[in-house]
């Protein structure tokens, strides 16, 4: 059992939680993730990235978006409650090296896994240009965290409600056209965004890392549900990744595989809401009025 130490609502559906996990906090490296399960007997194991960790306090920070039954249930929990299972840190850590200038792109909730990688790259002495993208102003997360780490920060929203009215690929292209061009790009976000970031950097031959969040059960290499095609090979995201060369990932296949359980997920989601209702909005409103 791992206790929830704090909880913050970053936007309507995005939550930040600090969880008690001393071993994970001290062992985790940038790029790694955890598997979490809310209930013991019938719970689902979901992979979530580690946004931050505090080894002294023995805590890790996760940021998640309500998208289905398990994240809904997680969002209902409060400080003092516990999650049934927390496994990690999993995956191969980011290979942090000093390359010069790195352009880091985070889309939506993808800014969360990007954060520790940028921390590592910054600490290694790289110049950091960060691009944060979101649909609308309300969905821009971790702006302050990223600003503190970045030599340059570009924010864009699809609807222009904050920063530039643009998709992240627009400023990314501009950065690639600069002289000298960036030495490395890191793009994390929705699969479609990562796909187009990789397409944007390809003509400029800027090496581009992406971090994949595929369907997993165990997270230790045992199920193979997370497999993706990278170049000519099948790779397991949980043990070979989650980071891969974005120019080699077959994103179209990955996007199709992510939809494998859409129907069942929707049904489970509906059943859960029928049974539990959604107390969350009422709860949060109560808190605000306190």
């Amino acid at each position: 059992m791992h206790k929830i130490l704090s909880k913050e609502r970053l936007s309507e559906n995005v939550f930040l939680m600090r969880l008690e996990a001393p071993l994970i906090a001290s062992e985790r490296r940038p790029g790694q993730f955890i598997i979490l399960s809310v209930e013991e007997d019938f719970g689902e194991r979901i992979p979530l990235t580690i946004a931050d960790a505090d080894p002294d306090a023995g805590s890790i920070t996760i940021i998640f978006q309500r998208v289905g039954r398990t994240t809904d249930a997680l969002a209902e929990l409060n400080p003092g409650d516990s999650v049934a299972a927390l496994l990690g840190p999993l995956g191969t850590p980011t290979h942090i090296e000093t390359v010069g200038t790195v352009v880091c792109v985070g889309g939506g909730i993808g800014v969360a896994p990007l954060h520790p990688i940028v921390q590592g790259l910054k600490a290694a002495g790289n110049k950091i240009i960060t691009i944060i993208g979101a649909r609308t102003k309300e969905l821009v997360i971790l702006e302050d965290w990223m600003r503190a780490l970045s030599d340059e920060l570009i924010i864009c929203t699809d609807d222009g409600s904050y920063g530039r009215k643009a998709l992240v690929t627009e400023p990314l292209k501009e950065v690639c056209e600069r002289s000298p061009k960036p030495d490395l790009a890191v793009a994390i976000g929705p699969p479609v965004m990562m796909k187009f970031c990789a397409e944007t950097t390809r003509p400029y031959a800027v090496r581009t890392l992406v971090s994949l969040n595929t369907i997993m059960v165990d997270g230790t290499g045992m199920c193979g549900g997370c497999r993706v095609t990278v170049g000519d090979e099948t790779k397991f995201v949980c043990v070979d990744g989650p980071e891969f060369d974005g120019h080699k990932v077959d994103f179209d296949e990955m996007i199709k595989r992510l939809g494998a359980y859409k129907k069942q997920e929707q049904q489970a989601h509906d059943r859960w809401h029928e049974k539990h209702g959604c107390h969350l909005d009422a709860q949060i409103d109560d808190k605000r009025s306190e």
Partner: protein
Amino acid sequence: MTHATPEQLQAAAQAALDDILSRGEPLTPKDRMRIPPQDMPAQHPHVRRGNIHEVALGYSEAQARLEAARCLNCKTKPCVEGCPVRIDIPGFVTAIAAGEFAKAAAIIKQNSLLPAVCGRVCPQESQCQAPCTVGKSLKDVEKAVAIGRLERFAADWEREQGQIDIPAVKPETGKKVAVIGSGPASLVVAADVRREGHAVTIYEAFHKFGGVMLYGIPEFRLPKSIVHEEVQTLKKMGVDLVPNFVVGRTRKLKDLIDKDGYDTAFVGTGAGLPRFMGIEGENCVGVFSANEYLTRANLMRAYDKERAATPIFSSRRVAVLGGGNVAMDAARTALRLGAEEVHLIYRRTEKEMPARIEEVAHAKEEGVIFHTLVNAKRVMGDDYGCVQAIELLEYELGAPDDSGRRRPVVIPGSEYTMAMDTVIVAIGNDSNPLIEQTTPEITTNKWGNIIADESGKTSMDKVFAGGDIVLGAATVILAMGQGRTAAASINSMLAAS
């Protein structure tokens, strides 16, 4: 296999047993050979394919005593030679024949920690029952004394009486042993080492203990309550069990020894990396490793669609690739989850199938459609990347290969397709790379299996290993045997230090 009801089987056995007992004189070998082999009572195929409960229901007392009476008590004990952990088989079978069931269980437990498990999942027809004199005389290995069913009977009887005794633990020695993984090899090491008074901690990556017995082997073949009971016994012995802890990642193996004060560690992490065919279309939506499919269904309980949060693919037409126990488990699970048709695809003939005879028979009775001497050539997907069909290629048997089995040879131009929406790949597992990746001190072979000597010792100081991580994908009983050997080495090492 029979479809006679358990009541019918019991009545027939009771009458035959009463007849034998009323004679009041010892049975001659001829008498024994005349006793009919006792069929295992089972749920009716039409009923059981709609539920997840155990298929084989177990012998009644009369059936067990009658089956045990078929044993000739050969002086040479060929059955013991066939048992990887050398259980005194004639000893326990004789006890069952005499109605001394507690004694039978005690005899088995001298050599095997998990008789209720092994009685159910061991490949007896290629181990203890293969050289059985009765089977040989009747020229049919399936007519050998049903040693496995008798083992199961004794173990179940003991458990149902609530008479499982907790093994005695010697006074605490102050020594600490870490056991990595909680499958059959690890459970045996934990028990054997704890008995000597050493502190034992089991680290398991999943949220529940039992390894392959829990995530892999389905409820209908091995009820989870049995595994749970074994784990409870370890708890009562004072073994510390830590879930959600992946050694190598949560903590390095080296740190457990150098920093956390463990005097030694045993690695029993199993063969956890599923093998795929390497064919076109294998990453289509609807293609699963048997590991994934079975883990969702078993450990995550996706069969309980109302309660489980973990989804499982809804399938109508399923192809399962492979001919081992895992392939049978996957095929039969798919039926239970509501598939209309399940096709088992195997590139050799039924004779070469590594699965237990009983599992093959059960699968067929339940309606799994067998296709032998064929193999998948490619998976064909639709515009959405979902499985639409599978292209198959026919084979014939050629000369024997290294394993002694006749090698399947492709028949050129024999391709044909079958419509499918699901493909489950059950062609085996490679070793899990996590320990290898995170523990440079441990030497592995080219397949990633940890190299251990006959005592179970690895190349890393104070570290032992056993089970599938050493053997490659093998059986529960072989893993247990390795666990027992490693535990003996650990105990003598700790006694000397």
